[in-house]
Every structure is written in C-alpha cells, then in structure tokens.
C-alpha cells in the first residue's frame, strides 16, 4: 500500500530584499498510517517551513512551493486553495507549540473545538455535535469535559490548553497529524503526558504523524523514522534505530553528543558543535555543514565545493548526505562517536 503522506523533492523559497531564501531545498519522505516521522533540526533548518507546506499554509504571493505532496492520494502542490482547505482539518490537522495563541481568548474552549467540527460537518445537529466534542475533550484527558466545555482558555493550564488544541486537531479524525514542537512549551512531566496521549490517539485512529522537534529525546521517544535537517536539506534519514543508534552523518553525531544527558560523565565538557547554524540567505557552498564539521578535511576537499546528495549507507533504508568515505566514516565513528557515548 502507498504511504498516506508522500513528499517528493519539496522546495520552498521566499523572495526577500536580501535575496532568495531557500528555506526547504529538496526534501523527500513518506509516512504510512500509524507511523511517526520525527523531523529534527535547529532554527533555520527548514523544519517548520516544511510543516506549513504540508498543510498548504504558505502564502502563494510570498512563497514559491514546488515538488509533490501527496496526502491520501491527493497531490496538493499547486492545487486551488478551496480544495486544499477541504483536506485540511478533515484529512490533516496541525498542532503547534503555543496553545495560547491557537485558542481565541474570548470564546469558550468547547465552542472553538465545535467550530472545527462544524466546518466539516455542517449538517450535524447541535446536541450531537456537543456530545461529540465533549467526548473528544474527555478522550484527550481533560477532566470534567462537560464543565470544561464552557470554560475560557485562561481558565485552562498550559497542559490542558495543549490537550484542547489536540482535541481541536483530532475532532474530525484526520488521517495525518502534523505536530510542530507539540510539547516544547510544557513542563517535562506534562510533556511526557502529552507525548503518551499522542501515542495512544495514534494507536486508536491509525494516524500518520509528522513530529517536528529540536529535542532529540522527544524524537527518540515517539518516532519510528527520523529525518535530520540542516539548512533546508535532509542530511540523514532512516529508522529511529538507524539514525539515533547508528548515526552516520557528522552533524547528527554532533547533535547527539552535544545534548547533556542524565547518564554519562558530568565532569567532562559537552562535545559542542562549533559555530552556529548558517543564514539561509548565505548558505555555505558545497556541504552546508562543512564550516562546522570536524571532518571536512577528510573527504579530499569536496565538502567545500560539491553539495553531497543523499545516498544509501549503513543498513538498508538508511541514507545520508556526506562526502566522507565509508572507511573513514567507520573509523571516525568508532573513535570519536562511540567514545563520547552517543551510540548505546
């Protein structure tokens, strides 16, 4: 069966006074129903621009979107807005980082969830709609949903608001959920609850999930597959097991070893990646990561001039975009990466 979501060579660029910003520069992936793809990257990596493109939310006057996005057999790129809108909300939904800005402060929470439902079920009766919404609020773990239905967003805690937003996203039973940093603004104990909730709902509705996060720990917890982005491109892609346990790309190595953990030696410095993510207006030539890469000298100078394409490496299904020769990569991995304790 075809995967529910398929993205081929997605490119999103914005014209600015300083030049063209290629925010997403040729990314491809697929997510079947019931699976979660974790998209990892730092600011400017293009991860959020990707999520907006999936929902067709870029303003065509400002952004140029090319490539193919196929959702449940429908190709979205270039489709008229009215058709995309029908799919959005019905077949696919978005939850993002800040639930407070997603909820209207003047309307009761239940009414806002109801509105999301009615847009796609205009003929549903009032009582039946309310029943459905109350049930949904209960499903996402909001206690006393009957009473909570009539409360305003300010009467909800951060965790409860995030639950309300999840209820709003799932009220039409979408087959695809885009979750852009869904738990980042929340405390760790609540974050853990929200991630569990998403996993439970996914099992129930057989949802395909694209989870976008800068937090590798969150991705490790929920993702089946992982895509690592840097400067608008995929640098490594594969199963969570492959990318997080046997990472192949020096950027992924760097990310994994720069995160402080609850294990490991607290007395030694973190293995930080030098420098900072590049500006998308002025992406370095060749491999965009080369100015920060410890191994840029070990691939015969190609890193500076030639952009590496995604190629298979490691075990089947695992791909990375890096010029480092396989033998050198294996040696560096054993010496520099396993030693700092990334791969366990």
């Amino acid at each position: 069966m075809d995967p529910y979501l398929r993205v081929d060579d997605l490119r999103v660029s914005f014209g600015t006074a300083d030049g063209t910003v290629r925010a997403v520069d040729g990314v491809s992936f697929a997510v079947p129903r019931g699976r979660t793809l974790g998209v990892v990257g730092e600011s400017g990596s293009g991860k959020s621009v990707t999520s907006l493109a999936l929902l067709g939310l870029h303003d065509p006057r400002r952004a140029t979107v090319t490539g193919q996005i196929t959702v449940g057999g429908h190709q979205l790129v270039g489709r008229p807005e009215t058709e995309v809108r029908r799919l959005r909300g019905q077949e696919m939904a978005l939850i993002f980082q800040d639930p407070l800005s997603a909820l209207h402060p003047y309307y009761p929470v239940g009414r806002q969830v109801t509105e999301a439902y009615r847009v796609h079920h205009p003929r549903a009766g009032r009582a039946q709609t309310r029943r459905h919404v109350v049930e949904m609020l209960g499903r996402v773990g909001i206690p006393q949903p009957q009473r909570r239905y009539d409360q305003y967003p300010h009467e909800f805690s951060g965790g409860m608001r995030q639950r309300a937003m999840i209820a709003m996203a799932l009220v039409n039973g979408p087959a695809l959920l885009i979750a852009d940093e869904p738990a980042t603004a929340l405390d760790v104990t609540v974050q853990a609850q929200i991630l569990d909730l998403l996993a439970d709902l996914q099992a129930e509705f057989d949802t395909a999930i694209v989870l976008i996060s800068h937090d590798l720990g969150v991705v490790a917890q929920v993702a089946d597959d992982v895509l690592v982005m840097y400067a608008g491109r995929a640098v490594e892609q594969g199963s969570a097991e492959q990318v997080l346990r046997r990472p192949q790309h020096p950027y992924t190595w760097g990310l994994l070893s720069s995160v402080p953990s609850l294990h490991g030696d607290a007395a030694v410095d973190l293995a930080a990646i030098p420098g900072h993510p590049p500006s998308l207006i002025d992406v370095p030539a060749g491999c965009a990561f080369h100015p920060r890469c410890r191994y840029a000298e070990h691939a015969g100078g190609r890193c500076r001039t030639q952009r590496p394409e995604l190629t298979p490496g490691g075990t089947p299904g695992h791909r990375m975009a890096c010029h480092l020769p396989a033998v050198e990569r294996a040696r560096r991995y054993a010496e520099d990466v396993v030693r700092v304790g990334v791969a366990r």
Partner: protein
Amino acid sequence: MTAGDPLLRVRGLTKHFRVRGGLVRAVDGLDFEVRAGETLGLVGESGCGKTTTGRLLVRLLEPTGGRIEFAGQDITHAGRRALRPLRSQLQIIFQDPYASLNPRHTVGRIIAMPLQVNGITPPGGTRARVRELMELVGLNPEHYDRYPHEFSGGQRQRVGIARALAPGPRLVVADEPVSALDVSIQAQVVNLLRRLQRELGLAFVLIAHDLAVVRHFCQRVAVMYLGRIVEIGDRDDIYRRPQHPYTRALLAAVPDVTRLGSAGRIRLAGDLPTPLDPPSGCRFRTRCPNARQRCAEQEPALLRRDGGNQATACHFPQSGPLGVERGGVPA
C-alpha cells in the same frame, strides 16, 4: 565572615503576590546556602517559584518574609544605597538574550554598563577591560561597536554573560541561561559557564527546568515544587538516589536520546495545583503515587536522613537507585 561561612545564606525566604482572588504564595519558606565557588541548581517546573527566588536573591524583588544574607550582611530589605556596594558582587544572567540587551546600545557599551553604574574604573581603562571580557566569553573584541541585532542568539547570551562578569561578581544568578538557544549552541554556552566558574572561582545559582543541563553544571541541586524545596543535596545523590517521589518522577519524565520508545517510564498524573490555594499538608500529595492520609494532614519538613547531605521533605521517602525504572543504572 570567616572562611567556612557560606557566601549566601537564605532562611525562611517567602514572596507572596497579592492578586485579585487571593494571595499567590510563589516562594513559601526556603532555606539554603551557597558557599564561595559553589554551584547550586534550582530546578522545578513552571510555577514552582524558581525564577521568583532568583529575582529575590539579587533583590530585584522585595521579599515578603525570611532573611537573605550575602557575604555575612543581611540584604533582605536593604535599600538601593545599602545594596550599591554589593551590586558588583552579585550579578544576574537572564533567560532571553533578545529582550535583556538594549538594542540601541553597542555591545561594548552594554558590557561596560555595570562598571559605569558601580563607579568602577578598571586598571587600563574600561575599553580594555570590556575587550578582555569579550575575549573571555568567546566574542571577537573587534565587534565592540556592533549592535545586538548583529549577533546570533548564542553570541547575545555571551554578551549577557560578559556583562554579568564585568564588575567582578562573587555570585552569579543565571536564570535559564541556555533554554532559548539551539541545541548545538546550548552545549557551547554550558561549556563556557563551566570554564568561567572553574577559572574565576565564581559561585553560581543556576535556575533551570532542564535537569540534564543542571547535572552538567551544578555540584548541588535543590528541587522545588509549588514554592517549596522538596529535596536538596549533592548532585550524585539527587540524580542517583533521589528520595522524593517528585524528584524521581521529574527525572523519569526527561526524554532521553539514549532510549528509544517510551516503555517503562513512570508517569505523573495531573497538573501543578494553583499556588493560590496549595493542597494541605504536603503540596505534592495530589499528584503523588504514594500519598497517604498523613500527607494531607501534616506538611513534611525538609529533613536529612542517614546523616548525609541530602535532605528530603517527604513522609515516605523512597530509596534505591532510579536506574531500576530507567532500565539501567546511570553511570
């Protein structure tokens, strides 16, 4: 003050905010100490009072009650004039590297500001000292005349750090200094703070929600919940043998790159209760998996057990390594 005395001593510190609908007990009776050159981490979730505590320590807020002693002096209610000689010794680094720098000032001027307001003229002049500080925190001194918007988030946080270090403080309160930064930049700044702490022998109070960051920086850790310290102790005790059920739940909730999937995690139910009306007895009891009758009736005191450095405010403290729940003993 003699050599063994703590640099900072906090006793019964409280801060209540009067709001419509009652009294928010943001900080409600804290006791702790920080020795010269020591790093203390204050951890907890939003609303636990950690940021308010930081602001009380540098006296950006007026305490409602209790006592703060810095370098042997009572500064609990010290006015501007009385605080002035101590200001240079007690500095703060803020969370948001965008909001905490004046966009109309050059970074040189920003870093020089604490020297100016404290009337400090460094030997060799202010400009030379600022350039030295920029070098120390890993900024290019040639960028003296640039403005904050010309710097990345990580570099701006370095400017904030240089500014805090300018007057030669003995204690720095750092409120979430890396949480607004990208992952790869966080590690750079954590390493920088570690180096500065080591080289300059500074005492730090690091306020953070990220337990892994705190573990990499602090010798001692205090865990806060609803305005109170529920557990305090040496780093290894807190991370390897946490006794308070909240500390254990907090550690278990931290997403961990080295573990795929979510099997075997203990989960805390519910949200933080409102500090307007904290639960009776132990404030954590409404979310605690082990709560019993006594927890509702009697507030547990922060007590040391088995003569160690670790103190826990719990009627039924847990024992044993956390590693059991985590599928491996932490190294």
